[in-house]
């Protein structure tokens, strides 16, 4: 506790850096996963290929991707872009599957009804499929966010600053409270983002609460 109080400035900096390294990849991955997942859902032959590729990507260890991306893409090592790109790829691998499965969870009747009353493809996707896929999508997004927050720490092994830096530095200096502070703050950050996502889900999908209230009544 004393160690943490003596180093509040450092902890603040690292937490902010960590949050950025986690949020940017998940946000970018979500934007990319929506069209890709929709494609996999709509074009069945592509489904296997896309999900297979996503699964394959997930077998590459994060550390390996961190160290290999700079020479492969010509990114300077000093930039944390390689960590952001690598984590975007992992989040994408998770979210493409999530989006596909979320769209599959939408009752076909709902889509058919929408088409019957004159909705076209795009508006069906935005007004019917996406909201109904919301709960499954949110669940996947939460998993992707929490695991990305945890994966950011591995970047410390290649010198990209985050709360993970407290692990390498703490191990070098043998300061147990430093390592422990890093573990707790990483978990808290994951928890905080998770709660924010849940809140966003409640605001964006108010009908879920209504349904639950009806079900329990």
């Amino acid at each position, binding site marked *: 506790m004393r160690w943490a109080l003596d180093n509040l400035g450092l902890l603040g900096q690292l937490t902010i850096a960590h949050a950025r390294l986690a949020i940017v990849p998940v946000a970018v991955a979500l934007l990319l996963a929506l069209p890709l997942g929709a494609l996999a859902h709509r074009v069945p032959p592509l489904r296997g290929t896309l999900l297979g590729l996503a*699964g*394959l990507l*997930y*077998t*590459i*260890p*994060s*550390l*390996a*991707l961190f*160290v*290999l991306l700079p*020479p*492969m893409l010509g990114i300077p090592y000093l930039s944390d872009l390689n960590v952001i790109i690598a984590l975007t790829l992992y989040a994408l691998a998770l979210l493409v599957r999530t989006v596909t499965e979320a769209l599959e969870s939408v009752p076909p009747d709902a889509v058919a009804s929408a088409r019957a009353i004159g909705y076209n493809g795009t508006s069906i996707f935005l007004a019917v499929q996406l909201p109904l896929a919301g709960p499954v999508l949110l669940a996947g997004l*939460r*998993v992707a966010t*929490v*695991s990305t*927050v*945890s994966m950011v*720490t*591995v970047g*410390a*092994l*290649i010198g990209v600053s985050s*709360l*993970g830096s*407290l*692990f*390498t530095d*703490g*191990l070098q200096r*043998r300061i*147990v409270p430093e*390592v*422990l502070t*890093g*573990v707790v703050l*990483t*978990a808290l950050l*994951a*928890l905080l983002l*998770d709660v924010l996502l849940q809140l966003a889900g409640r605001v964006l999908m108010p009908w879920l609460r209504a349904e639950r209230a009806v079900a329990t009544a």
Partner: protein
Amino acid sequence: MNLFADALAWLTDPANWTGPFGIPTLTLAHLTYTLLALVLACAVAAPAGWAIGHTGHGRSFAVALAGAARALPSLGLLAFLVLVLGVGLKEVATVVVLVLLAIPPILAGAYAGIDAIPRGTLDSARGVGMTGWQRLWRVEVPLGLPLLLGGVRGASLQVVSTVMIAAFIGLPNLGTYLIAGQRLGDYARMLAGAILVAALALVLDGVLAVAQRLAVPRGVRMATAAVPA
């Protein structure tokens, strides 16, 4: 690509296939830690998941616990355990970290497997006079096995890639190629290490996928084969 050619050359160089840091030795070390962690995690998580699925109690607790476990950074946990337990127990520290990582997906697979069983099937089992234990062992566990193995597949991917961080505390495995390669500026070795780890993950995943398919009871397979027709 030049880098890939170099990595291939490194992988096919007989010199890298012998000795205490040769590919067979380090692959075996990597595989040993992975399997040990998966077996221990199954021993803990499968019964717990079955209990949750069977009784219907404790699901929200399990979900919260799994979420919390996922939020714990493995690297930090490993550093913490090594500092607290001492290097004499670093193997133990590594296995503990890996088991904690593997528990959430296996736990979820275990209770989801039971959840997915149609209500009618369980009612029939009850109807023919099966006791709680009989229903669990003869109906719920076998029918839930494919989803449980799905959880093990997810866990194995994560464990294979996380074993690498143990190379930082002096437990040689395929991660050693990445660390040493990075510090020596030897990209061929780094890429070769990454390829070996990914290959190991794929092989394990393939074996588990086959097991998952075989785990579907014959009756169910025949039934599902009949349905789409």
